[in-house]
């Protein structure tokens, strides 16, 4: 197992190098530092001097890959590629184009992101599994049929509707919680409730429907018939036998997104004014802050690879048939 994980981590390296090189090309070759400077300075203030000054301030005045005048190794290290891209591998994100330390921003904004994303995931999982189990228990009845219809209706509505509708209903009409914003400490709860409820509403239709299918698939298996032949009650069959097996695909589907929770949700955070990493990324895109976007793209791919690795490990934990070799 250790050998397997080590090998998987080695496989991850070329992927990260690929992501790194690709983003470098997009951000510095397709879109040159001069273009960035022009965008940032705005049409009125663009002069060759201003551009040069902007580039020097941010370290974009170096050559892309090879700094010929510098001696020895510095010819390689004193370049945009090395300073801006290779350094990402040590999680040294440098400064944003606004001049702020990116690592510190990330550390600050991770908290609010997790405060929304973790409860949303857990509540969603619990509600979806419960509803799906209920439908599976009442399979073939009207409750099941209407439950599926309702789930399809829920999943057919755009998530933007849930956000705006939720803000209107809960925030404006009922005046229960603020419609946007965030505070630290215990006060955070009142800002978290609405986004969590909205993401639950947006995901419950597709989640329930999918989990119901998983449960029904397991219910049709031979070992369920064996369990019934032992004289077990339907409740015991569902909870002990079916749930254990259906949880395998459910859990592994959840584990793969766990690391990505750190990055928060772009849309939810933007709409609810949550100062998390999702809104950070959106803001950076708005402000053409490529240093931040680059850092987030790289971090996202690292976390995604981590998620896939965690999925493989979680398989070995929940499914005795799987061994990593």
């Amino acid at each position, binding site marked *: 197992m250790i050998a397997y994980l080590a090998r998987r981590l080695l496989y991850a390296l070329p992927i990260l190098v690929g992501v790194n090189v690709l983003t470098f090309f997009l951000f510095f070759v397709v879109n040159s530092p001069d273009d960035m400077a022009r965008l940032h300075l705005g049409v009125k203030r663009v002069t060759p001097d201003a551009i040069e000054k902007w580039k020097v301030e941010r370290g974009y005045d170096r050559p892309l890959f090879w700094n010929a005048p510098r001696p020895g190794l510095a010819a390689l290290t004193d370049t945009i590629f090395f300073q801006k891209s290779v350094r990402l591998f040590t999680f040294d994100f440098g400064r944003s184009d606004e001049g702020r330390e990116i690592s510190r921003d990330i550390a600050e904004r991770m908290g609010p992101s997790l405060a929304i994303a973790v409860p949303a995931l857990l509540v969603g999982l619990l509600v979806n599994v419960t509803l799906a189990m209920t439908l599976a228990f009442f399979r073939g009845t009207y409750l099941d049929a209407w439950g599926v219809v309702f789930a399809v209706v829920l999943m057919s509505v755009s998530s933007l509707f849930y956000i705006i509708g939720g803000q209107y209903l809960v925030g404006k009409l009922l005046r229960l919680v603020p419609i946007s914003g965030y505070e630290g400490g215990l006060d955070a709860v009142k800002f978290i409730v609405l986004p969590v409820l909205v993401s639950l509403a947006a995901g419950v239709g597709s989640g329930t429907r999918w989990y119901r299918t998983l449960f029904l698939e397991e219910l049709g298996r*031979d070992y369920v018939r064996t369990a019934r032949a032992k*004289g*077990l009650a339907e409740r015991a069959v569902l909870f002990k036998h079916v749930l254990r097996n259906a949880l*395998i695909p459910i859990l592994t589907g959840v584990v793969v997104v766990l690391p990505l929770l750190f990055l928060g949700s772009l849309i939810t955070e933007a709409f609810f004014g949550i100062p998390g990493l999702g809104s950070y990324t959106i803001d950076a895109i708005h402000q053409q802050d490529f240093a931040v976007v680059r850092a987030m793209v790289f971090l996202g791919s690292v976390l995604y690879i981590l998620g896939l690795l965690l999925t493989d490990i979680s398989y070995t934990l929940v499914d005795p048939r799987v061994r990593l070799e």
Partner: protein
Amino acid sequence: MTASPRALLEVRDLRVSLSVPGGTVRAVDGVDLTVMPGETHAILGESGCGKSMTALSILRLLPAAGRVVDGSVRLDGTDLLRLPEDAMRAVRGRRVAMIFQEPQSSLNPVLTVGDQIAEGVRRHQGLSRRAALRRAVELLEAVGIPDPSRRASEYPHQLSGGMKQRVMIATALAGEPDLLIADEPTTALDVTIQAQVLELLDQLRRERGMAVLLITHDLGVVAESAQRVAVMYAGQVVEEGVTADLFARPLHPYTRKLFAALPAVGKRGGALEVIPGTVPSLTAHVPGCRFAPRCDQAWALCRAAAPGWHPLGRGQGVRCHLYAEGRDRARSLPPGPAVVPASMAVPRDVTPTPLLRVRGLQVHFPIRRGLLQRVVGQVRAVDGVDLDLAAGRTLALVGESGCGKTTVGHAVLQLLRPTAGSVRFDGEELTRLSGPRLRQRRRELQIVFQDPYASMNPRMLVGDIVEEGMLAQGTLPDRTARRSRVADLLAQVGLDPGATDRYPHEFSGGQRQRVAIARALAVEPRLVVCDEPTSALDVSVQAQILNLLRNLQDHLGLAYLFITHNLAVVEYLAHEVAVMYLGRIVERGPVGAVLRGPAHPYTRALLSAVPVPDPAGGRAVIHLEGELPSPSQPPRGCHFHPRCPEARDLCRESYPETVGVGTGHRVACHLHPPS
């Protein structure tokens, strides 16, 4: 069938319907059964006859589409069909337990074996968790699982097929039931393991006074283990009786046909009896006898009126107009269980030049481990196999699952590249061929796979499937010519030319296997590897396919490498046989010599384990201990010595040489030392 006061289980007029797209199937249509305490009662029938549905209705475990329409199922006088659901749950597992055909899928993969047994113990005996687990270990011991306390903490996938079925039996014993329903309990197992499981069931029945309702399609299994048997056809019991009587004198034309369709030694050279037509669709009401359209003794009455049940004494009865009161029984009784007169066609015992010559064939699969995926061992799937096969002849390769016989077939065809050894076909070394030259040769080497459901592309029309080989080989460039050849081929294998424009799923298993044979024949091969072509089929359909294969051989001079575990098929079809054990041939020679004078203890055990459809046979089964070892670590010395009843010190030390013990009969065993 008069109701007996001491019957354990009495099923009366049971009717079960199954809803299917486009109607309802009367899967069970008026079945009566009586099971006495402590007896094994078999229900014999082919797939789709309703035997499993009958069994599932007793426990009220029918699939969602199934429904009991009418009838009663009395257990000690209580009608189970009228019990409320939670009272029924107290019956399941406690009074009546059930085991199923596929032990692999019938056990929960994510729970330990011990848990799954303990679950039933806790449910029915109210023991604590720990006491239940202790009981589970005892039960595992009772069903003959070595090292039961370790096994109890293992998961099903860590056990072999035979052990899983033992675990299923232990699960069923947890509630100490009065009746055990065993639905095809040994169909998925090898003969030697089947013998072990049947013996276990019988021992448990005797020790515990438990009745067994044995559902099976295998006449041999019935003869071995059941005291009484009911034969089912199309949802009805057509004949019932004491096993010995029924086997000695089968009465219903269907039962007689079943016996005649069995491949056996007396029928060599002749064609096997087949039952024409197919089982009628049970969606519509059949006014007459359900078997009438396929019965060669049917007359007008059979098509007009359904026959009633005619008791004939000694508990035997039959549902057939031939035995109605007042009819002249002597006239209607054709001679005893028909053995088709063997025509003894051509005694092809001249030794022709071999078409296929395999020498020292090895196929090893590397086991890789660790960070750098270093090779740490080899699975020696095939480890030095020699074969010779001449045109127009059949060489059977027999052995238990996992012995490497399928791998040999694939390596001969170069579907798998051998690790070492030579495969010469028609004088040319195949192992060195590649690219277009090999492709050209493939035309002469074809294969028919075991599972006709999985081996054809479900999205392709039958015509395209048959045509594909000709296209790939470019044998017939003209489309019209190709199409007419497809029609010819389908006709040759006994299919309607209209089959061309249909998809594989529209056909039955036997018909699909015919398509697979037509596909193989399309490129005019000289050698066909038949990999268990009939093991997924019913007896009567198996007979049709075996007849077809034999017929094609006679007409086209095909050579067959026939891979099978069914020794009856070997006797019927093969000229020579090679017995494989753990990657090596332990004995080979002419069929008659090997099967009647087996020289290797393994061959002897294999032969003795085959259930014979003769209750009076009284054969002694040589019980093999344990199971096939892993081919990655074969035992030292003779591979077979750990299971061999005749093993000696020498057997633990060295692998025996192959020596001749008769004309063409060779064996590798220390009992036969080289002279």
